[in-house]
């Protein structure tokens, strides 16, 4: 597609439920990032995929968080047993390091845990 697409745009879930957030990167982009932005806060790095390399998971806050990227394209961020502190906007970005290093962002998924 023309840009990074994230779905859903909004998600309300009950505490303790699992959620899946989806990211469709720009076609051909080999790098994909997930960030979390809590209310009034900056960008918290979560995970980074680059081509076929092992992902950089150093930002995942707990083992309830996981992400995968299938076929080098679509990525899913999964949060298990959601907690209220997981409420935030989850941003996905992609880039093509071979062409230009800047990241292109999606509009984000606003997650609310009630």
């Amino acid at each position, binding site marked *: 597609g023309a840009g*990074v697409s994230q779905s859903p745009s909004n998600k309300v879930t009950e505490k303790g439920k699992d959620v899946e957030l989806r990211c469709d990167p720009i076609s051909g982009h080999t790098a994909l*990032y997930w*960030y979390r932005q809590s209310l009034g*806060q*900056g*960008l918290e*790095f979560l995970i*980074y995929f*680059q*081509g076929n*390399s092992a992902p*950089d998971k150093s930002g995942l806050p707990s083992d309830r968080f996981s992400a995968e990227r299938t076929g080098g394209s679509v990525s899913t961020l999964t949060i298990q047993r959601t907690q209220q502190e997981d409420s935030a906007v989850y*941003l996905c*970005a992609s*880039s093509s*390091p*071979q062409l230009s*290093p*800047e*990241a*292109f*962002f*999606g*509009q*984000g998924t606003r997650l609310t845990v009630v």
Partner: protein
Amino acid sequence: AQSVTQLDSQVPVFEEAPVELRCNYSSSVSVYLFWYVQYPNQGLQLLLKYLSGSTLVKGINGFEAEFNKSQTSFHLRKPSVHISDTAEYFCAVKRNTGGFKTIFGAGTRLFVKA
């Protein structure tokens, strides 16, 4: 490892006044530098980037930034701001060799007053 410090969390300024948003970075290797803008309820978009060459970089919406290697700074400036410039601004750094993630600062909220 790289890190980014944005020295001001909030910057209030009157319309048509000049503004400078400060950014300092830390890195033992050469880096690319970026400024992104986030308007309310939107994703991030690239304002400008420094890859190499001229240290003065011009971006969209009349913004510019100057790379100062000796001071490890990349401050963002605009000579005359508009109400529409009210947004969150993020400075970011990335190693200039492939396969590494982009690191973001905590953000500076620019508030332009009439």
